[in-house]
């Protein structure tokens, strides 16, 4: 498939925004249950929510560039019964709305205490945050399933697609939250750094699993099934036209094998090895600049990872477009 940068930016930015919110909310829930020190973190939560909202908005704007007719984009919400893309388009604004409320409550310190169970005080932001977390999870699932539900794109048709999207989005969000914590809430920075390492390691495991799986894939479609002629040696002599068409432009990345391998190895280093190492060093020596490098490395690496994810898929229609003349 030809990777479209608008979709690459959409998925990475949204993933990071969701991951950031999940990091903040986990911190709040842990504080609630007194696992972490409480208090004084409202402004930090507000800043985090604000940045997450900015990321999500930027992602949404990037997505608009991908459409041929963006003025009709509202119609994309109507087919939620069958289309994962439609479900994503519905859930994304709902999540942003909950996130906005969550951030606003923390920023304006409107935290009304609702229920008290023993020593645990559940306030309004916890409830709003719970709804936001549920919609963020549905958003992760919907975005991953857009790609995973296409059963003949064998590289994508696996639960690993959704799992990887969740873990990578969470990892990038947690890395960003670690940096923000170092700046605005130093007492919880080790909590964030630790969890970032755990999630990044999990993401590495599952992404590696999908790389191995895709390497071993045998295509189900061959030129024999494509034209229905049963002979071992079939070659296309002409695709019927000499100029390009959507079929020759949109479905192949047009890069050399060397470039693809370079991108694959680069993203593994930039998304996993380098940030995990830098975060581990941070936990040992506490230098904040390491976090900035980790964030830049992971973000750049994630763009490459998304690009590779798209380029990796072999669409069976390519069988029909092999030779010009």
């Amino acid at each position, binding site marked *: 498939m030809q990777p479209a940068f608008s979709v690459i930016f959409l998925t990475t930015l949204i993933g990071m925004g969701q991951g950031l919110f999940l990091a903040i909310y986990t911190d709040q829930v842990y504080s609630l249950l007194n696992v972490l020190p409480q208090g004084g973190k409202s402004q930090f939560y507000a800043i985090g929510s604000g940045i997450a909202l900015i990321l999500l908005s930027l992602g949404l704007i990037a997505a608009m560039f991908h459409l*041929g007719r963006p003025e*009709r984009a509202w119609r994309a919400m109507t087919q939620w019964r069958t289309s994962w893309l*439609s479900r994503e388009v519905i859930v994304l604004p709902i999540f942003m709305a909950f996130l906005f409320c969550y951030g606003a409550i923390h920023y304006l310190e409107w935290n009304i205490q609702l229920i008290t169970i023993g020593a645990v005080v559940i306030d309004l932001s916890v409830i709003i945050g719970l709804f936001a977390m549920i919609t963020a999870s549905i958003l992760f699932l919907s975005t991953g399933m857009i790609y995973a539900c296409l059963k003949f794109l064998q590289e994508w048709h696996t639960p690993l697609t959704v799992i990887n999207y969740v873990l990578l989005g969470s990892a990038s969000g947690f890395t960003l939250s670690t940096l923000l914590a170092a700046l605005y809430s130093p007492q919880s920075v080790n909590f964030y750094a630790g969890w970032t390492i755990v999630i990044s390691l999990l993401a590495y495991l599952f992404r590696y699993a999908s790389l191995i799986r895709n390497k071993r894939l045998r295509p*189900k479609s061959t030129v024999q099934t494509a034209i229905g002629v049963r002979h071992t*040696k079939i070659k296309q*002599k002409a695709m019927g036209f000499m100029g390009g068409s959507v079929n020759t432009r949109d479905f192949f990345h047009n890069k050399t094998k060397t470039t693809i391998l370079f991108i694959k190895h680069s993203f593994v280093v930039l998304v996993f090895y380098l940030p995990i190492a830098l975060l581990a060093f941070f936990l040992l020596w506490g230098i904040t600049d390491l976090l900035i490098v980790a964030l830049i490395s992971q973000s750049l690496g994630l763009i490459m990872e998304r690009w590779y994810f798209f380029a990796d898929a072999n669409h*069976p*229609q390519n069988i029909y477009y092999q030779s010009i003349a």
Partner: protein
Amino acid sequence: MTQLALVIDLNVCVGCHACVTNCKEWNTSGAAGALADDRPYGEDPTGTFFNRVQTYEVGEFPKTETIHFPKSCLHCEDPPCVPVCPTGASYKRKEDGIVLVDYDKCIGCRYCSWACPYGAREIDEHQKVMKKCTLCVDRIYDTNLPETERKPACVLACPTSARIFGDVHDPDSEVSKTIRERGGYQLMPEWGSKPSNHYLPRRISHYKIHPDELERADNPLKKEDYQSPDLSEPSLDDVTSW
């Protein structure tokens, strides 16, 4: 339930592209707007076509067969392009099973072209909506046309009658008969999209010619009572005066 479709006979297709040009002409001059056609006589032509004819070579040179392969939207019974459309622009008609795109709803997100394993859907670069073969739905129901011309443009254009149009769910229709009798098959059946367009396979007829069929056993020139004239005798040319 009616399912209109095409049956394409690979045995007689000669790859003339008449169906391609006729389809493009009909759909460019129709009510739905022109198809993209950039730099057609220039250096880097490109455009939107609903139907394309490809050529494949089977076997290894010099023992090869050339197969010309027209491909357009196969109007699948279980179309993968319909459930993925977020706006509902991509739909399958209940009354005749034709899969269509509503150009007023389409947002050009290209998700349906990802979802089609045959590469039948193209985005029109100028109108920015997805377009595909409509099975000439504007021709087949047009009462202003004579009955015999209410067929898709490609079917009428084919000089070798390689394209047949009809209802594949009706066992008595011409298309169903040809599929049954000549082993019509679907493309890429492994994905379960159940395409309605079928293809008839190549079949070369071999005739065994026996040597005694070439020469008659009772050759009248060799009958006993016939004698060829003696060459020393004068012929008519010697006797007649003209």
